[in-house]
């Protein structure tokens, strides 16, 4: 690294890396230089002139946001001239500003208000007529108020540079300049609302939040988005037990200011009036509302009699990939000890197990990739996934890596995904081609030409370009599973540098579902159920025996129901009728179908007992994102009538004669930390809002059937049941574009 640069700012000496901007150098000695248009990570504008400072030997004031520091520079930020310049910029900005702060959404958290409070003048000398423009609706989610706009161009840049959507431009000129959608009157975009978040004033407002409240009436709780496997940190703003808004208020964590449309707007399923709030029991073929006591004791009684009559393996459990680790852990304990069966599974959206197995076998469990590894990566290899739709934060971070330090992106995919724009190399394959390319890369098999667009020539060029890659971060979707994961790991570990791996699975806690052992063949932390010593560890902690042979995976369970072997199915936060195509008539064969859900899904409609569960906003716990990073979920509000899966399981266990001593999710987490391999995480790090990486180690049984792993292929606006009940996600025209549509 080049020698640091030493300069003086307001008399304080400071040393910073060469190339640092003066405005950032000032922060290091706690000197705040006000700014509007400067935004770290986005291109420089020199537009607002708020950051003018005095530099010795320079005739004019200089903008600190565009000045690169030089050795010996002497800077003053508080001279009368500088102060007057700031004050005058604010005075000029306010000339055409409506000053409707009392009704503006941004009032109380507005950068312009704060700047005027601190640097401005209380009086104006402007006596002319203000330029007025009526507010415009850019989409159901984004509104624009020109008079409030200070033209800092942050919205344009975050849309161009951050999102690669380019939805905004500037219309007209001079004092009549305004932000306009680039395509006609309306936005046609990813509707992420990054523009609203980044707007320093109340010019861009949110269709779901505007004019609803004052920011100081809200309570803020930092938690985790419930929609995809990336695990963005978010802050829910709640008033009277109603979520009003979501944004990552302190810009901390793995996502900084980022949230996609689902994270920023799609939480509204929580407030949906169709939420279940009373249990239902099927009587005479019709579901009727009941009390919690009745629903749970009826379930327990039926379970008792089925277990007594048909044995534990006549019962099966389907877990969720968006409930907490604590709930998942308890559910598998419930299945293995209270019910006594390993018949537990969930919708597996990526093959986490095989990666754990492969890295453990290669003694390379330090090579799990984290989200941060993407941001810092020089070379990224993306196989069989479309992050723009399936992993919006991953897509965002890949773009940052490419734009900010020229990371090389290599893509293999079936469709022409949007990230191809950032890709240095792209190889298009047919269905099944991803795995074939991986085996061909390692030389394990010949290249099946017909699966690759451009044939062996295209493959050769692609493979050749990969040769120069070091420190690869390999991201793979559902097409790479089972043996193919092992092949890919073998190839990846043969590459120079430190190759890292991450499977890209859907939904907020797919990874946690697998890690917590919601699988028929392995315990929490991936040890096979047939591994006696692993079983002992849990058995001694629980004081109960667990079954010794593998259970049925979900497809076998379906057959079991059909064949009459499975009599009871317990479903927690999952919709197997839709996900696994379990038909009404199949489900009708069950003696007991118990469903814990937020909404009356296709599965819930067939149930004998449905109980209303809490959503992510109404409970605490942890999620593990698809990279294996654990983050804390915090309860932000109550929803009358609902119970969390944790409470439901504790009650059911009690009714079935088991005394569990857990008082809260925290107790369960402490047990997970103590018992689950790879989860020995530092609790304080979790509590201060970090994403804490795990390194599972184990030798899980091989994948039973390849098609147990499949992505839901939700598009950017979808995430199964939750998005179906989001007004916001369904309100935008773009939600009706087919999967893979590019913006």
């Amino acid at each position: 690294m080049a020698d640091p640069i030493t300069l003086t700012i307001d008399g304080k000496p400071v040393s910073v890396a060469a190339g640092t901007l003066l405005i950032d150098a000032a922060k290091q000695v706690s000197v705040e230089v006000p700014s509007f248009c400067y935004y770290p990570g986005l291109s420089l504008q020199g537009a607002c002139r708020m950051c003018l400072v005095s530099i010795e030997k320079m005739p004019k004031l200089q903008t600190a946001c565009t000045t690169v520091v030089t050795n010996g520079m002497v800077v003053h930020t508080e001279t009368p001239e500088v102060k007057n310049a700031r004050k005058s910029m604010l005075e000029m900005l306010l000339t055409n500003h409506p000053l409707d702060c009392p009704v503006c959404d941004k009032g109380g958290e507005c950068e312009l208000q704060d700047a005027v409070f601190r640097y401005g003048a209380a009086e104006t000398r402007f006596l002319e007529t203000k330029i007025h423009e009526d507010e415009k609706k850019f989409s159901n989610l984004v509104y624009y108020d020109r008079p409030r706009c200070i033209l800092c161009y942050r919205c344009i840049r975050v849309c161009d540079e951050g999102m690669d959507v380019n939805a905004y431009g500037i219309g007209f000129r001079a004092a009549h300049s305004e932000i306009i959608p680039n395509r006609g009157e309306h936005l046609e975009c990813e509707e992420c609302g990054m523009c609203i978040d980044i707007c320093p004033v109340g010019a861009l407002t949110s269709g779901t939040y505007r004019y609803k409240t004052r920011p100081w009436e809200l309570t803020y709780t930092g938690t985790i988005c419930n929609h995809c496997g990336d695990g963005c940190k978010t802050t829910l703003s709640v008033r009277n037990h109603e979520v009003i808004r979501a944004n990552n208020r302190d810009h901390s964590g793995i996502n900084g200011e980022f949230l996609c449309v689902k994270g920023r707007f799609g939480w509204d399923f929580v407030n949906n009036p169709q939420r279940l709030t009373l249990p239902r029991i099927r009587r005479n073929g019709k579901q009727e509302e009941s009390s919690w006591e009745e629903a749970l004791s009826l379930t327990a009684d039926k379970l008792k009699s089925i277990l007594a009559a048909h044995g534990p393996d006549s019962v099966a459990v389907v877990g969720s990939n968006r409930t907490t680790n604590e709930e998942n852990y308890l559910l598998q304990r419930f299945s293995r000890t209270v019910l006594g069966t390993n018949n537990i599974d969930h919708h597996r959206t990526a093959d986490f197990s095989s990666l754990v197995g492969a890295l453990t076998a290669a003694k390379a469990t330090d090579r799990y990739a984290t989200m941060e590894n993407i941001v810092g990566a020089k070379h990224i290899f993306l196989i069989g996934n479309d992050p723009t739709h399936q992993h919006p934060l991953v897509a965002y971070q890949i773009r940052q890596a490419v734009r900010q330090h020229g990371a090389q992106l290599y893509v293999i995919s079936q469709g022409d995904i949007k990230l191809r724009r950032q890709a240095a190399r792209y190889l298009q394959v047919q269905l099944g081609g991803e795995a074939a390319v991986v085996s061909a890369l390692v030389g394990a098999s010949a290249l099946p030409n017909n699966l690759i667009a451009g044939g062996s020539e295209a493959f050769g060029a692609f493979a050749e370009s990969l040769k120069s890659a070091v420190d690869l971060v390999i991201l793979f979707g559902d097409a790479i599973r089972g043996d193919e994961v092992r092949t890919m790991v073998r190839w990846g570990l043969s590459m120079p540098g430190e190759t890292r791996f991450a499977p890209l699975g859907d939904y907020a806690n797919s990874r946690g579902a697998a890690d917590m052992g919601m699988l028929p063949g392995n315990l929490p932390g991936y040890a096979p159920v047939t591994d006696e010593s692993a079983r002992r560890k849990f058995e001694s902690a629980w004081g109960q025996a667990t079954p010794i042979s593998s259970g049925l995976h979900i497809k076998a369970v379906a057959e079991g129901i059909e064949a009459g072997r499975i009599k009871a199915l317990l479903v927690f936060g999952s919709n197997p009728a839709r996900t696994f195509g379990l038909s009404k008539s199949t489900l009708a064969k069950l003696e007991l179908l118990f469903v814990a859900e937020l909404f009356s899904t296709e599965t819930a409609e067939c149930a004998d007992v449905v109980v209303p569960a809490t959503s992510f906003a109404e409970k605490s716990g942890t999620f593990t994102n698809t990279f294996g990073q654990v983050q804390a979920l915090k309860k932000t509000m109550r929803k009358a009538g609902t119970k969390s899966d944790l409470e439901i399981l504790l009650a059911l266990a009690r009714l079935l004669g088991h005394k569990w001593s857990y008082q809260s999710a925290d107790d369960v987490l402490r047990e997970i930390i103590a018992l689950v391999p790879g989860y020995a995480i530092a609790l304080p790090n979790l509590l201060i809002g970090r994403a804490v990486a795990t390194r599972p180690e184990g030798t899980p049984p091989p994948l039973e059937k390849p098609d147990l792993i499949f992505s839901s292929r939700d598009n950017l606006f979808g995430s199964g049941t939750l998005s179906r009940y989001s007004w916001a996600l369904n309100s935008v025209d773009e939600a009706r574009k087919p999967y893979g549509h590019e913006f």
Partner: protein
Amino acid sequence: MAHYENPMRGSSLEVKVLTERFGIPNVEKLDVFVQHNGYEGLRKALTMTPDAVIAEVKKSALRGRGGAGFNAGMKWGFVPRQSPKPKYVVCNADESEPGTCKDRVLIEYDPHQLIEGNIIAGYAIGSHQGYIYIRGEYRYLMEILDRAIGEAYAAGFLGKNILGSGFDFDLATHTGAGAYECGEETALLNSLEGLRGYPRVKPPFPAVVGLYGCPTIINNVETLSSVPSILRNGGDWYAKIGTPNNGGTRLFALSGHIERPGIYELPMGIPLRRILEEVGGGVWKGKKLKCVIPGGSSCPVLTASEIDVPMDFDSLSKIGSMLGSGGVVFIDEDTCMVKAAWRIMKFYAHESCGWCIPCREGTAWLKALLERFHGNGGMAEDIDTALDVSYNMLGKTLCPLGDAAAMPTISILKKFRHEFEEHLKLGSCPFEARGSESGVRVSAGVAI
């Protein structure tokens, strides 16, 4: 091609360097041009090293005619000799400064001279591609230039291996869409690249990071048109025509309240008083002079007592004004300076690109204030407010347009404060009360 009255009125004080061929029948045709020393400068240049060409231009003390007056040879010298990227020559024919209309005649009457200047500049900096960026309203000049460029290609002055020298150079025209700001060099580059005509943050300067991120020189039409004669006759010869550090002649566009408005080629350093009296025929209708805008509307005005100044960059700078783009606007005693200030600000408020706060908001504010003031709504504090707002723009904007708006305003507010006060006292415009014509006409087509 007479869209308008011939602006070349002629004067015995003229020194014809740039305009030496004006009036020769069909000189816009290549063969006629060549018969009159055409492309001789280029032939000469091609026998020299690029560095020697730059040295010759430096020696000539040719200063940029676009407004800022930067030494042309020095600017060329900033371009890195070795560059892995292509380099570009961009000719600024956006001529939009109110009061300025000289690039137009250079293109119309002697297009090959400009083409020759572009090729020499390309040779000097090692560029193989030039662009001439023409203001939207000058679209008709594009036809003239395109025809001439076609002839030059056919005759081997453009294209591959020019005159057997091994040097390649291509030249193309491009039109703007009519924004004044697109004459600012970095806004021009954006516009040329197909982007909105917003200026860029400097540094980096275009000589290093210019068109498409490559080293680029940007010169005015008149600057480049001066180059062939410098090569032909030598830098020393050219420098001697003007005053020290202000080589050669320049085209002055005289407009406003004078008897003989028009375009005249005069040596640098000629006193403004001689221009008014001996070239322009004095103030019209026997009236008295009130003030002069010496180099386009961006320049601080000079009062009648300041017109003994020699018309070169340094002398004008010394008395707090600028030579600018050579558009000299004379204003007679019957003109209301409040209205003049308002009209000038109306132009800038309209043309501000809107990128930065002080210019976008400041020009709009000043325009509204001055309009109200002249419309009898003035208040005593307005004068100081207007001055202060102007100072708050000055030196604080991203590009010099903000300064260009502030400078004339400050000078009028200071030098003609008494006229503002008279408005206040009278409660109306004293000039309109007297029934005088208070408008100013300038020949660039913008009626003030």
